[in-house]
């Protein structure tokens, strides 16, 4: 069906993530230390983006790693996207990137120039982030995978928790949705150049800029939208007994993505996301394509921020100047209906 040369890219990015349901089951069964280390400020109980460990009164380190198979055919762009995606977890916590290590899986028989381009793209993004690439680890594997293990720093009092949303907050999304759908259509040769250009521009844009803007305001909760899709990550954000109302008309998206969803460029990952959170969501007459958009797994997606309305409006004006579709997409409410309502 597909020509031989695009074996490099057979459906990667965050669509390659294991389903959220599967993970929760395994994680809940892992042994835990008897005594909790009180310097561990954020571990994986709260489904957060990265771990945060306090090393002094005014400094904590932020640790994360992310890697995945290619979702685009150009190895240099893939390197940039994989790095931007891995670095994003630091920014979702409100931290600054310090050092990064390469994680590489690469077939022994493949052209090493390809690996060179991947790592060039990755290291450029680490430098743009203000960090230093300090090493890495590589494995001979059947398929290409690339990413980073990243260390950042943060003031322990200024961490953006994943689940800190408060009643009355509004929800700000800093990048367009739809990159999963567009990349899928592209793999089948059906995406337009414009759509793919916007997807690539969005995926290669560091969340550094949006993170630095929102730090100037009152942020209650923040996460980055990746493999579990907008609704999956929103659900984690509302873990503390809150609900949300999403205004679908305000969802920033790659314009063509809705038409591609109507053309059934549907990934397994999006369906897994639907299975995982679909029961918590009530769609009120929203078209099928918009539903798919909200379940679409994002690679290097934007930040989803829960913050007071006035702060969000000012932050949005600054973030819009970064040049990607973004918007205030809904509000956080008391949990009455047990549902995320999408209007």
């Amino acid at each position, binding site marked *: 069906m597909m020509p031989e040369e695009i074996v490099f890219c057979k459906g990667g990015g965050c669509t390659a993530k294991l389903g959220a349901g599967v993970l929760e089951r395994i994680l809940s069964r892992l042994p835990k230390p008897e005594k909790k280390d009180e310097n561990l400020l954020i571990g994986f109980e709260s489904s957060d983006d990265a771990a945060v460990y306090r090393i002094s009164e005014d400094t904590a380190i932020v640790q994360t790693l992310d890697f995945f198979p290619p979702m685009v055919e150009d190895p240099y762009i893939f390197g940039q996207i994989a790095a931007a995606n891995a670095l994003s977890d630091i920014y979702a916590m409100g931290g600054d990137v310090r050092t990064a290590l390469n994680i590489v899986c690469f077939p022994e028989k493949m052209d090493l120039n390809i690996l060179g381009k991947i790592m060039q793209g990755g290291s450029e993004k680490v430098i743009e982030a203000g960090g230093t690439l300090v090493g890495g680890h590589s494995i001979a594997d059947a398929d290409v995978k690339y990413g980073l293990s990243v260390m950042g720093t943060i003031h322990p009092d200024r961490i953006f928790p994943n689940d800190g949303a408060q009643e009355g907050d509004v929800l700000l999304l800093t990048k367009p949705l739809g990159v999963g759908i567009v990349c899928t259509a592209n793999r089948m040769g059906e995406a337009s150049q414009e759509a793919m250009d916007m997807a690539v521009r969005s995926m290669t844009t560091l969340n550094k800029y949006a993170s630095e803007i929102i730090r100037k305001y009152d942020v209650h909760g923040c996460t980055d939208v990746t493999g579990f899709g907008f609704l999956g990550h929103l659900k984690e954000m509302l873990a503390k007994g809150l609900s949300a109302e999403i205004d679908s*008309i305000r969802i920033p998206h790659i314009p063509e993505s809705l*038409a591609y969803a*109507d053309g059934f*460029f*549907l*990934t*397994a990952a999006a*369906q897994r996301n*639907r299975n995982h959170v679909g029961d918590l969501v009530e769609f009120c007459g929203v078209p099928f394509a918009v539903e798919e958009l909200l379940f679409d797994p994002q690679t290097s997606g934007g930040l989803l921020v829960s913050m007071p309305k006035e702060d969000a409006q000012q932050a949005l004006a600054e973030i819009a100047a970064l040049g990607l579709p973004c918007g205030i997409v809904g509000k956080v409410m008391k949990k009455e209906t047990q549902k995320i309502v999408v209007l």
Partner: protein
Amino acid sequence: MERVDARGKTCPLPVIETKKVLESMTEGTVEVLVDNAIAVQNLCKMAEQKKMKAVSEKQSEDCYVVTITVEAGSQTQPDAAPVVCMPDGRSAGTVVALTAETMGTGDDVLGKILMKGFVYALTEQEQLPETIVLYNGGAKLSVEGAETLADLKLMEAQGVEILTCGTCLNHYGLSEKLAVGSVTNMYRIAEVLSKAGKVIRP
């Protein structure tokens, strides 16, 4: 009966291959073999959207059969079908006049969001308009970089005539930027509006 063996293939391939087979049929059934439950769900989702009946059966751990039935006359045409073979997804005589970059009055930032939403919602209607005319500020909706462009292009591909006022494009310095449909003049706009059975002006 048609058969698609999509075992060993990952989404969206089973769905896209089945879609192509369905689009080539006027009636009958398609039996699709897949090797995982998620692919079954994606196939059933597509069938539901196409208003077709789908029945699935698990034969073994790595073989599921989804049978989709196409009833005569139920088949919708592929998205990019040329105008001549449209069984009229368009509603004859309905004209949408987009006269501003915004929808409604009150707040222009909101108005732009609403207009973008309206144009998208038009694409999701069962019946598309026959013609969309864009004039004054509406002319900004059909040019390069407009957020409404992709949806207008989609409707054009389904046979909707899209006409933008040339005087208006000139006025806004956008003559070189028109990216969908064609340029028109006031005579044609007056004719289209006069002959319309129904004019929708959001």
